[in-house]
């Protein structure tokens, strides 16, 4: 549970806990100090009150006399609305006041002022005794003036301050939590941007991560980079493997084909010739499929680091037509190219393989003795190469699905294919920021495949 909790939440909770502890501490300290201060104030006033009474003590004709001064109680009334009790004793004798009021025990004999706590008439009281020795006649009499006051004033003042402090501490706590939330978010920002920079990458972007992460993230970055390196290596290895496999299949096929052709030329038996032609066609198909597998791997690999070289489409078309003329001638198909010079930026190898696959399809699906037209045009920011044939066309089904890997159409009876041709062409055009349009020919007959490329 705790392990999977977000770092931000955990940090915030931790900081909030610390803030709460500090708030509580400061609150209890302020409250304690307030109580002490209020209690000390009360003690001082009580002592002053008892002292003013003690000062009026005098001896008259051998008797101790006194008079309670108005100020003695008015000063007590000034600090709070507490109840006041008092008592004056001379020796064992009560002079005036509340006879049952207890007096605080002096902690040291002969100390002049003594403080104490007690209960009187059901209330907690703070008491002070002031001792004064008065000469009554010829003998000294120890007179004790005790003044007591209830503690409500002290409680009210310290309670008030404590409440105020509590409010303040709470505000402090809330502020601290808010600030720690911000602090946590800022300190986690590098982590988030790091994660984002990783997740923003394309599916095949395996370049190492740029340096510049905070020290804490350097190990993570290193680990990720190593992982990606390994991944890139293994992908490259499997592509190499496919290319190698395709290559290895094609070379012996070429030998087989050459031998078959020689045999075809040297025999005149109709049955043998027919068989040999079939062999040659099957070998062609196999080598074509292997070539397409190779092309497909090449597209996946080269699209990652797409070259942006200027490519002249006219030249590209000429090159492709030239390469496929032998195949076309086998079916007595005429390739008619009308070219204008248009330059695009891209990878010539990929563009060649795209065009080659499309043109190859056109020848493949065309009946014998027909024409395949190749036209280059430029409109707006787009350059187009359209290849139209007089074959069956794409039919009524969803043409876009034909671009999927290993997907073949319903019009392929008798035509051998791998379902990779359109996939390769579409991938190449997508890597160049263009698209592959599948449509019908000019009079609604045949197929028209258009390679659309941006010119800028």
């Amino acid at each position: 549970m705790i392990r999977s909790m977000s770092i931000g939440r955990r940090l915030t909770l931790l900081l909030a806990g610390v803030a709460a502890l500090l708030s509580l501490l400061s609150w209890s300290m302020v409250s304690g100090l307030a109580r002490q201060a209020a209690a000390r104030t009360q003690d001082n006033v009580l002592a002053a009150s008892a002292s003013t009474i003690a000062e009026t003590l005098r001896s008259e004709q051998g008797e101790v006399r006194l008079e309670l001064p108005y100020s003695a109680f008015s000063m007590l009334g000034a600090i709070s609305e507490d109840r006041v009790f008092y008592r004056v004793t001379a020796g064992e004798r009560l002079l005036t006041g509340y006879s049952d009021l207890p007096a605080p025990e002096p902690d040291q004999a002969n100390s002049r002022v003594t403080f104490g706590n007690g209960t009187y008439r059901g209330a907690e009281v703070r008491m002070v005794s002031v001792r004064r020795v008065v000469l009554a006649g010829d003998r000294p009499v120890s007179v004790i003036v005790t003044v007591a006051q209830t503690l409500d004033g002290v409680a009210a003042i310290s309670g008030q301050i404590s409440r105020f402090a509590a409010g303040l501490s709470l505000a402090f706590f809330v502020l601290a939590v808010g600030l720690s939330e911000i602090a946590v978010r800022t300190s986690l920002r590098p982590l988030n941007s790091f994660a984002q920079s990783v997740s923003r990458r394309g599916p095949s972007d395996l370049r190492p991560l740029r340096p510049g992460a905070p020290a804490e993230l350097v190990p993570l970055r290193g680990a990720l980079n190593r992982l990606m390196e390994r991944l890139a290596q293994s992908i490259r290895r499997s592509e190499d493997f496919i290319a190698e496999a395709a290559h290895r299949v094609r070379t012996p096929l070429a030998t087989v084909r050459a031998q078959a052709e020689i045999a075809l030329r040297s025999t005149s038996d109709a049955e043998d010739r027919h068989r040999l032609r079939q062999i040659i066609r099957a070998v062609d198909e196999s080598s074509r499929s292997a070539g397409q597998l190779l092309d497909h791997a090449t597209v996946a690999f080269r699209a990652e680091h797409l070259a942006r070289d200027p490519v002249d489409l006219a030249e590209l078309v000429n090159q492709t037509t030239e390469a496929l003329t032998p195949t076309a001638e086998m079916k007595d198909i005429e390739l008619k190219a009308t070219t204008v010079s248009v330059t695009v930026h891209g990878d010539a190898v990929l563009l060649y393989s795209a065009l080659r696959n499309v043109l190859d399809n056109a020848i493949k699906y065309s009946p014998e003795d027909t024409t395949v037209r190749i036209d280059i045009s430029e409109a707006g920011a787009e350059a187009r190469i359209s290849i139209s044939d007089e074959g069956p066309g794409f039919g009524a089904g969803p043409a876009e699905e034909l671009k999927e890997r290993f997907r073949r159409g319903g019009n392929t009876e008798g035509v051998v294919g791998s379902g990779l041709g359109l996939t390769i062409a579409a991938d190449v055009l997508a890597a160049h920021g263009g698209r592959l349009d599948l449509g019908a020919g000019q009079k609604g007959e045949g197929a028209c495949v258009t390679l659309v490329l941006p010119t800028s």
Partner: protein
Amino acid sequence: MRYTRLAHVLALCVGLLAMAASAQEIEDHKSYPGTGDRTLRIISTADLEVFEPYILAFQEDRPDLTVDYTVASSIELYRAIRGGGVYDLALSSAMDLQLQLANDGFARSYRSTQTDALPEWARWRDLIFAFTAESAVVILSVDSLQGAPLPLTRQELILLLREHPERFLGKVGTYDLRESGLGYLFATQEARSTDAYWRLSEVMGRLDPLLYCCSGQMVDDVISGRLVLAYNVLGSYAAERLAGETGGKVQIVRMQDFANVMLRTAIIPATAQEVEAAGALIDGLLELGLRDDPGDWPLPPLRQTGEVSSAGFGPIRLGPALMIYLDPLNRRAFLDEWENAMEQDTDPR
């Protein structure tokens, strides 16, 4: 000396017991029956005719309550509560005695929005609540001046009494401090606030003064002509009685050098049984006490005289300092001095 020794022996309350030698029985008593069987028992120093309107107003709101109203002197009231008498509400004009009761734990605390609305000087500890403020005044029959202007300060009053003793001899009245709690409160506060008090007392003492227990009787005697001057009369009583009855022949003067303002206060005794009803009555009284328009209620509101007046003196402060003069030693000393000033029988005139 004798008194001092007495005080040694007696506790505070016993000392107060001793001072009211002429303690009468309960002065007056009336019951206002309600529809229910609960009874609110009030003990008060305010005369029946003064307080009756308040009771009737209260019963309009709470017709179920029977109100049992007992009139007593402030000292009797103090003793009754201290002695554990069962009352639900004690209303007294003697602030010092009320405060002593509250301080010593004979009052119960009460809080409501009304008590919270009271200004600070009109309450103490949620135990005592003031609902009227009345000032002490001098009443004087105009004839005695014989054309001279009204005395507005104690100094002027002293001069008047000194210069024309023949007009005032035997016709000056004031509180008997030994009997009247309110008189004693007024005198001690005045003595504390102005040194003219003792000089005035000396001068009055030489005029063979008549001593009274209560404001009402003093006002009666001024109206009847038995007195020409009454000192320290409760203003509210005087104003009410004199307005119609004398046709301007008697004047009410509020001393401008210093005038006591007394707060009439309520406490709920610790023995109270109908606390809720007592609280409701207090709330009603406080609402009236805080009214702005005096109206035709017998007792004035707090604000009229309560707040620091133009002359610069506010009401007597509620607080433990009031207990100072209740201390038996202090009381004896003060009364000794007062008696010396007032009873100058041996003094050749």
